[in-house]
């Protein structure tokens, strides 16, 4: 006659594995997101590369041919999903970032660039976690403006 499987063994297995599964689920439902926006002035005057932009050097080298890059402002904000992060570029436009949801390892967000009370760029995009969205080409008194936008979901 076969003995039944002890209930203690089943309970033990549940105790061992359920917290791990629940923790993995929580990662996909972060309550907030950290939005980072930076304003970079690029020009061909001089050969200065702002050391605060080191993390973006590879991107800049791949995409642009400017000789000088200067970070004029950087700001990180923690906002809830659906909230908005505003960023004013000195001498330039106003940037609004609205993270909407985290799905398939990508952050869906709306980015609006406003100048003289009018949206000049209004876009909806999906950005990979640790990905970077650059908006460049806008004229600035000191060169060309490059906006750097990134977002990371925050754990609960």
């Amino acid at each position: 006659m076969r003995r039944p499987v002890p209930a203690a063994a089943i309970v033990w297995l549940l105790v061992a594995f359920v917290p791990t599964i629940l923790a993995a689920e929580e990662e996909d439902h972060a309550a907030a997101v950290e939005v980072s926006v930076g304003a970079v002035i690029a020009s061909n005057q001089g050969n200065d590369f702002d050391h605060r932009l080191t993390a973006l050097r590879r991107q800049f080298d791949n995409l642009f041919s400017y000789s000088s890059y200067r970070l004029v402002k950087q700001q990180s904000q923690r906002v809830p999903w659906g909230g908005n992060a505003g960023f004013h570029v000195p001498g330039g436009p106003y940037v609004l970032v609205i993270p909407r949801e985290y799905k398939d390892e990508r952050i869906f967000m709306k980015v609006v660039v406003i100048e003289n009370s009018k949206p000049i760029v209004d876009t909806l995009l999906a950005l990979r976690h640790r990905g970077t969205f650059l908006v460049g080409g806008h004229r600035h008194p000191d060169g060309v403006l490059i906006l750097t936008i990134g977002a990371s979901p925050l754990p609960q």
Partner: protein
Amino acid sequence: MKCRDVDSLLPLFFDGELDARRMRDVALHTARCVECESELRELETIQAHFQSGVEATLAEVDLDSLWPAVERRLSRQPPSLWQRLRAQWEGLAPLELPVALPAGALAAVAAFGAWLMFAQVEPSGAPELDRIAATDYANSLERLDTVFESVALVSDPNTQTMLLWIGDEALGVEP
């Protein structure tokens, strides 16, 4: 970038085989040059014809006989590992159960520990290129409204970066 430079790069541009900077330059040029844009449209037309030709050929393939052939092969498959284990479990004598149960629990713990160790091997700051290849969820632009007539979008998967280039300052960035 001149028209003759762009002309030689258009096939590579169309196939997405240029590096990010050249992609941007070609995109910007074709956005402004009517002749190069029409060349690009021609490439698109050729590609569309080719694709429709391939689809037409595929449509002629008889797929009705495919599944019966697969079923015949499946029926010849040997029993799976799970089926063999289950057969062994059902043949286990009652007195062996007190030994088998802790052994199974130990195996589960060992597998869980191995999974934990394996999960910690990946450094937190490492590039996610492998995961990109596995999931293929890339950066993407879902919608764009802008007042600018000239816009270029460049994606650099190596750095997970997407560039939206707007306005008419692009010519000023030529080396």
